[in-house]
């Protein structure tokens, strides 16, 4: 201890301290972020990877490059993980219909097996988020109350409190989450597709993600307790409704009343 306290005014002490700090922070960060690197290439067989490669060359390589290294038209897919492919291809966003502010949903182009093969191929290129395990998608294990709270704090500012979607800048938007599969909701949180931020496992744990999914599925299943929900868009659609349908009916009645001979 004495030696240490004597050396503390050494000219290199500050450098040593800085180095130590960086090492600790970096080490901790690496440990924490490796939590997110689900590495599930093991689930895929070699033939999946091979078939996936063929599909990739035929359907994706034009924009993403022959080895998924990326081109001017599309980003590199090395290290994006199976979850990314499963989400983008599984929801029909990829292959992309046209360039635009963001990839639009359209009918899915591949069957489940082909999606899995493509995922296998991309996952084989580098470690990345894997397709979630079934236990994190089981809404019977989740807590919708807590999920709702997480949703309102993290998601509702773009997706709307009732998950009806909302606008972002310059033509981008957060889509409605109604009818989206549990798996895809989970994957979106992990990979942060389009303009969505990544909510990794140290940010929202897999159990919490399951809670969010539980919440979304519950409000979807319960329907609207108060009658037709007018798009769940808030006061704008309510105001529009009262000015068109509400006043329209009232005006029809006023005309009817005053056209009657008393």
């Amino acid at each position, binding site marked *: 201890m004495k030696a240490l306290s004597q050396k503390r005014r050494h000219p290199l002490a500050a450098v040593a301290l800085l180095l130590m700090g960086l090492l600790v922070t970096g080490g901790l960060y690496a440990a924490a972020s490796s939590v997110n690197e689900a590495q599930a290439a093991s689930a895929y067989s070699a033939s999946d990877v091979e078939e996936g490669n063929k599909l990739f060359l035929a359907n994706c390589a034009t924009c993403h490059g022959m080895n998924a290294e990326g081109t001017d038209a599309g980003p590199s897919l090395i290290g994006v993980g199976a979850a990314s492919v499963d989400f983008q291809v599984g929801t029909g966003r990829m292959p992309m219909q046209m360039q635009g502010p963001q990839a639009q949903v359209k009918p899915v182009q591949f069957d489940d097996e082909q999606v899995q093969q493509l995922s296998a191929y991309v996952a084989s290129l580098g470690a990345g988020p894997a397709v979630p395990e079934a236990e994190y998608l089981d809404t019977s294990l989740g807590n919708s109350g807590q999920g709702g709270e997480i949703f309102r704090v993290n998601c509702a500012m773009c997706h709307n409190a009732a998950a009806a979607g909302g*606008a972002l800048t310059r033509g981008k938007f957060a889509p409605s989450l109604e009818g989206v599969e549990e798996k895809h909701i989970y994957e979106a949180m992990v990979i942060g597709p389009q303009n969505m931020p990544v909510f990794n496992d140290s940010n929202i744990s897999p159990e919490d993600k399951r809670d969010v999914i539980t919440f979304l599925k519950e409000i979807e299943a319960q329907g609207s307790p*108060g009658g037709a929900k007018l798009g769940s868009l808030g006061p704008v659609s309510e105001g529009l409704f*009262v000015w068109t349908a509400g006043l329209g009916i009232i005006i029809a009645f006023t005309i009817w009343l005053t056209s009657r001979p008393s």
Partner: protein
Amino acid sequence: MTTDTVYQPKTKTGRIADFVDQRTGASGMVKEFGRKIFPDHWSFMFGEVALYTFVILLISGTFLTLFFDPSMAHTTYDGSYNPLKGIGMSVAYHTSLDISFDVRGGLFMRQVHHWSALLFVASVSVHMLRVFFTGAFRKPRELNWVVGSTLLVLAMAAGFTGYSLPDDLLSGNGLRIIDGIIKAIPVVGTYISAFLFGGEFPGTAIIGRLYMLHIMLVPALILLMVAVHLFMVVVHKHTQWSGPGRTEENVVGFPVGPVYAAKAGGFFFIVFGVVAAISAFFTINPIWNYGPYDPSPVSAGTQPDWYIGWADGALRLMPGQLWDFSFDWIIPFPWGDNLLAMGVLVPAVVLVALLGGMFVWPWVERWITKDDREHHLLDRPRNAPFRTAVGVAGVVFYCVLWAAASSDLIATHFHVALNDVTYWLRALFFLGPILGFIIARRIALALQRKDRDIVLHGREAGIIEMSPEGAFTERHEQVDEYKLYKLTAFESPEVLPAQADRAGHVTRSEKLRGSVSKFFFEDRVAPVTKSELEEARSHHGHHAVEGHDDKELEQ
């Protein structure tokens, strides 16, 4: 009260009526009000709709007060709505949820209350538009216009204080914006905000205070103003459309008793029925979606109710910074820098200016036209092109702000960029009213010319005739006397140039008035005069003699 002919009631009803009458003199009032004449036109009924929705608001609101607790004390939700179970929230939000899910009929009553609130302000607005565009605010009704404008402001205040009560995320976001606007007021803003919220936003006092305003003060003021409003309607008598036998001195229509009492009573139940049907089938303000108020999140689709939308739109349109020019002005004072948030202040000033313009318009028009006569006959909007154009400009301006409040939904639903929507609306903020003014005036003038044409040359009958030479002409039919009256009986103010006062000076304000008058009335269309009409008819008759068998049409 001793007269020779003492009324001897024979029936039970008669005895009760006589008992009351001897003690209150009610028969005199019934005689006065019961014989009050009201003209019949559908556009005159929006004031009634406003009154009835207000009554519905009082009834449904009373029900809600039985179960609502305006406390901001913390509690944990244990009601029957599963997705919120175990969530910490205020008692106010908890009881609002209880009304929705655990009180029998509570959700329906909440929806009745909210839908009728939206319809209330909407019918007040449409009523005001009707009064404006028909010129019903002119002498002697200027003060009643002011009372009506006050009612609109009170209606918005009632709506906003109610919107804030459930203490959900949506209402809290709305309150935060109001807090921001208040704080932007120079010098006193922060103090007003601190007094209103009892310290820093949100505090623990605001819901209770808004509740007092919402259920007591504002409704009491509205009731008072409604009483004054209706009293003045009785004093002034109702306006009417011009028509044969309708003059500035009479009112043609039906008496309150029995016709209007029955019609109005029935209409109340129609309005109630419409509101109830809407409330039964369409949800409004699903507070359970929004969650308890928490100052950190703001959900997408956070908008105020429609009548505050224009204020939200003004804030959305105002840039915080234009290129290098910032609207956050930092004013150096000896005691330190003070911030003047022009990005909030300018929209607030715009809103106050629009409302102020509404209040003073009757005097503006009176000043321009120098018309000090009483008017009980209404203008058709086309017959006052200047006023119609000003009104349309105001409506367009309001609608631009209104649209701006839903800019995000316009972007998502029409697949356009949010930024572009904002840029377009910013341009329309300035150009829209001007375009609206010009287009509305041209349409009004064109319609007036068309009316002149119909009066002088008759209506196009849609019958094409071919002469022996092969020429095609369309037969014109003379319109009937009632229609003719409608098309000719109106006033068209003329340009009144600046005039010298008694000392022979033409003041600067008089010069201004003269040029405004010129701008408004220089291309007026004059109503058809009797001699013009006679000349046109004799010409037409002469024409008929020449060989057409138009005789039948003339009759």
